[in-house]
């Protein structure tokens, strides 16, 4: 597991990290609330299981750390739960629960099946 502390500053030029948005003039907060999608609930459940006391693969603090290591374009461009699942994937590899190859192979299988069924598959950005 790498211990390098990668600091990802936002392009504000003052050294603030990419996730650290408090006080920036970036428009009004979108207060629209939506019912969580099934995908979002599944990501949330996965986090609860992996970070929970029974398995303890990683703490939520580690999830935050990985999310904070996203490049700004990915941080801004990906949805909240997209960032989470990318970070979870990274942490599963970091904690040697799965290998990157295992994850990639399984994703390739799923994409192949969905493509064959004529379903669109979105390709997210690579997690840090």
């Amino acid at each position, binding site marked *: *597991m790498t211990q390098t502390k*990668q600091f990802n500053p936002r392009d504000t030029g*003052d050294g603030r990290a990419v996730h650290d948005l*408090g006080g920036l003039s970036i428009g009004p907060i979108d207060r629209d609330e939506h019912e969580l999608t099934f995908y979002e609930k599944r990501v949330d459940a996965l986090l609860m299981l992996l970070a929970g006391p029974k398995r303890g693969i990683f*703490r939520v*603090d*580690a999830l*935050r750390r990985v999310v904070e290591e996203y490049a700004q374009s990915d941080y801004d461009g990906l949805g909240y739960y997209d960032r989470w699942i990318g970070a979870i994937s990274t942490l599963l590899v970091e904690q040697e629960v799965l290998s990157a190859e295992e994850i990639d192979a399984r994703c390739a299988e799923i994409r192949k099946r969905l493509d064959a069924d004529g379903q669109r598959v979105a390709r997210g950005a690579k997690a840090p």
Partner: protein
Amino acid sequence: MKAQTQRFGVGDRVRVRTGQMPGHVRTPFYLRGKRGMIADVVGDFRSPEQLAYHKPGLPLCALYHVRFEQGQLWADYAGNANDVLEADIFDHWLDRDTED
């Protein structure tokens, strides 16, 4: 930064540290270098900066509710002069404020 035992009590005037810290930190950028007052001593917690790297996060770190004047945080603050903001800040991110 090394975690320290509780150094402040309610009413103490403090200043949030500055400096670019790599890794996972919980002190928001907009509070760096700002002056405030200890409103409450929340308790002792494992360091999130260490937990983020699968470390035990010990020794426990004291956590405070620190109160800031909104007028001190924002140059163009147009709200009530008595408005305050409270944030959770860990002990090792604070220094005693000795200025008047």
